């Protein structure tokens, strides 16, 4: 025998969403105001020196002359200078009165349309290799002075600081700036263990290359 369907169907009332909607709509402009879609980072720069880039030997350590390394960005490439060493001899290149030049290099660049064009840019990889060589020779030196031609755009100085900040891991391929880009984005840097205070846990940090940068203020 078939059972009769009950006429009393339980009616479920919908939740009144209007007050919640009002609240959420009020929250959106507030949150939107505080939202920053661009992530801002910081690049620290040491207090600049006034005058031409030169460093006097320290009184307490007369035996070891500081390197006093300067990287100058010009329209035709980098120029490496040091007050404490003959860089031409160090790198085994031809001596130049101004220092060691790293000329611009031309490489293939594929633009937005996918067309390959020639792009002349700074040779950041060669700069990195030379600075790594100097770091191995002068382990105690920390300061790198950066200078540029007056009309050079500031973004090139930031790029140079990015390249010279940390030592890349040994397995990083260095054929083009794209390789450095990939390594930097994946934080493929050499690591060093630092012991914590009073027997605390040791922390691992990236091995610096020339991370203390100052700008030379030339009058």
């Amino acid at each position: 025998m078939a059972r009769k369907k009950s006429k009393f169907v339980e009616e479920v009332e919908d939740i009144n969403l209007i007050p919640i909607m009002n609240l959420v709509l009020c929250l959106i402009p507030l949150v939107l105001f505080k939202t920053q879609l661009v992530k801002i980072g910081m690049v620290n720069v040491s207090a600049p020196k006034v005058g031409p880039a030169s460093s006097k030997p320290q009184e307490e350590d007369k035996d070891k002359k500081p390197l006093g390394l300067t990287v100058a960005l010009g329209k035709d490439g980098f120029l490496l200078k040091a007050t404490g060493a003959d860089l031409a001899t160090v790198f085994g290149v031809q001596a130049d009165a101004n220092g060691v030049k790293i000329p611009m290099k031309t490489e293939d660049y594929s633009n937005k349309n996918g067309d390959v064009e020639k792009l002349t840019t700074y040779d950041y990889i060669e700069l990195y290799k030379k600075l790594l060589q100097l770091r191995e020779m002068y382990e105690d030196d920390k300061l790198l002075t950066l200078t540029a031609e007056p009309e050079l755009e500031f973004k090139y100085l930031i790029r140079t600081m990015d390249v010279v900040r940390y030592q890349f891991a040994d397995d990083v391929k260095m054929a083009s700036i794209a390789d450095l880009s990939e390594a930097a984005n994946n934080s493929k840097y050499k690591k060093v263990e630092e012991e914590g205070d009073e027997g605390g846990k040791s922390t691992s940090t990236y091995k610096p290359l020339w991370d203390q940068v100052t700008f030379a203020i030339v009058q």
Partner: protein
Amino acid sequence: MDSRKQQSIEAWLKQQAEDKSKKRRKKDLPDDGGVTLSSLMDAVTIILIFLLMNFSTDPMKVTPHEKLQLPLSTTMLNAKEKTTTLTVAADGILVDDKPVVTIKNNQVDTSDATSLTIPQLKDHLDQVVKERKELAARLKQNFKDIITIIAHGETHYRLINKVIYTAGQASFTKFKFAVVKGGQLKQKI
């Protein structure tokens, strides 16, 4: 005759209303004809979650625009503390968002073009330092001589040089440059 017509019209209207009501019940639509808020609620909740994910607690807020395109960098450092900010846009220099000097073609209008100091900026920074020192003294804290420079990527080095020198003259000794984080080392910049 008229009353019969009236009756038939009323009957027809009643029938129509009943049909409509049946259709509504079939479609499960609310009888009052109100808007369903559930879907709108879903969309708004998703927007709210997205905005909360990008909610910035950074002490410094920079909105890049045409005249202030910050350089890209792979730096891992964040803005940790609120400091005095010096913005060098393509059209002017601002200290703590207050315009101080105008810039034309990467050059500041100063009486002495060869001087490294920008007089208007120096005066303004001196004033800022004085106020900050007074405030720090009242709060029994030390004055923080840190300045954050938010510079347009295409600013010439000469101008950056002058700005740093002037800030140094106004007793700032620690400099930080604001950059856009996570920028790839693109071939063309």
